[in-house]
């Protein structure tokens, strides 16, 4: 192997994609050639150092913009006028005159045939309705996915947006409910927890929600959040939570304002 040939192998050498044979030949060459060995070491060190250049990360705005635009795109798809039967048939019409004539005669024959057999007032099922229903389903799935994804983000403002998407999913969605409850219990931002509690109104029908809310109150460390949880129970008219609320009202470890609020709530729930 000569110097020229060994230089051609450097790219593979750095990427560690040299075959065993080639690697042996390469090693043999640089062992015997000072210039090539020196260059291999210098450029190799530079190649390694490139990995030390700090990786740039996008701002949280990138994700928000993407999901907003995706939602708008889906909304646009949903509300775009669907091609009518007429447009679809016209699209099928052959361009060649000979074929056009042949098709016309065939259609005439079929039309006459249908005329004898068709009953007035029978409508064909429009496939457009099926498409819209399918699209609606996809939009719901997307909202769910967006909510779940945003609720896990580092930035509080993104998690807040996740909560606002969560409000738009059907109240039977257990995955989103679960994520919201987790947010209420574990989110580092008080604001996000408060918004999530608001969102739970949507899911109030589920016994899971009510139980989780009641159990969350003594575990919270912020009086504001505890009061919001108590308010939620009152809004949901959850009389079953009365025993737990009594415990809160008499628990010395809990903030006085919260205890008072629990007492008030007990009055409202009777």
């Amino acid at each position: 192997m000569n110097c020229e040939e060994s230089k051609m192998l450097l790219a593979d050498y750095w990427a560690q994609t040299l075959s065993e044979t080639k690697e042996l030949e390469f090693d043999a060459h640089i062992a015997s050639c000072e210039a090539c060995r020196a260059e291999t070491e210098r450029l190799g060190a530079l190649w390694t150092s490139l990995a030390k250049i700090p990786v740039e990360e996008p701002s949280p705005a990138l994700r928000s913009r993407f999901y907003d635009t995706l939602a708008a795109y889906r909304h646009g798809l949903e509300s775009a006028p669907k091609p009518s039967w007429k447009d679809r048939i016209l699209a099928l019409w052959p361009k060649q005159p000979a074929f056009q004539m042949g098709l016309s005669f065939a259609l005439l024959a079929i039309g006459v045939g249908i005329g004898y057999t068709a009953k007035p007032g029978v409508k064909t099922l429009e496939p457009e309705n099926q498409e819209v229903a399918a699209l609606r389903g996809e939009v719901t799935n997307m909202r769910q996915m967006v909510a779940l994804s945003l609720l896990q983000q580092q930035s509080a403002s993104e998690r807040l947006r996740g909560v606002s998407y969560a409000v738009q999913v059907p109240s039977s969605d257990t995955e989103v409910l679960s994520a919201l409850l987790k947010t209420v219990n574990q989110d580092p931002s008080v604001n996000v927890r408060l918004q999530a509690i608001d969102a739970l109104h949507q899911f109030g029908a589920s016994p899971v929600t009510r139980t989780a809310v009641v159990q969350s109150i003594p575990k919270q460390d912020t009086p504001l959040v505890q009061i919001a949880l108590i308010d939620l129970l009152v809004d949901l008219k959850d009389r079953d939570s009365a025993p737990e609320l009594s415990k809160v009202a008499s628990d010395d470890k809990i903030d006085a304002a919260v205890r008072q609020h629990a007492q008030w709530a007990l009055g409202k729930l009777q």
Partner: protein
Amino acid sequence: MAQVGSGDVAKMAVLFERHNRSLFRYFVSLNRNRELSEDLVQDVFFRMLRYRASYDPNQNFTAWMYQIARNANIDQAQKRRAEVVGIDEFDDRRDPSAGPAEVAEKNQDVTILKRALDRLPADKKELLVLARFQDLKYEEIAGLLGCEVGTVKVRVFRAMRALEEIYHTLLKDARAGRDGTNGV
């Protein structure tokens, strides 16, 4: 991506989560403009959405995505050339890493390496970014650039040589500056 092709646009969100950061890194390595790079990432995903019918499931997805990314970058560059006249994109006076505070940084050599990479001619820089940061194989890069894989490897070698030259020049300048022999 084939699922996106069949109309399930929501799956694009999954692709976004998987690829948005590496795409951002690609663009910001080339143009050092964070805002523009975010715009470009957005642009690429929506081009993929619009052109999803043209995606061939037998084709490597990353190759297709980078094809679109390169086109988006070229389109943007052309638009910007038409708007912006005479501003050196890599003017050190605007480069935040060239301020006096940064000169005292421990990792100064890496900062200088980053500047050296910025100063490479665009085609050499892109090649190194694709090979070193985007984890593309040489065969994939060859497909992307429309050349032979052997050519790619030779070009990578030459790009590294060019990078070394610029890096050492900048290093020398930086050290002369520190030693106060710059005469400014």
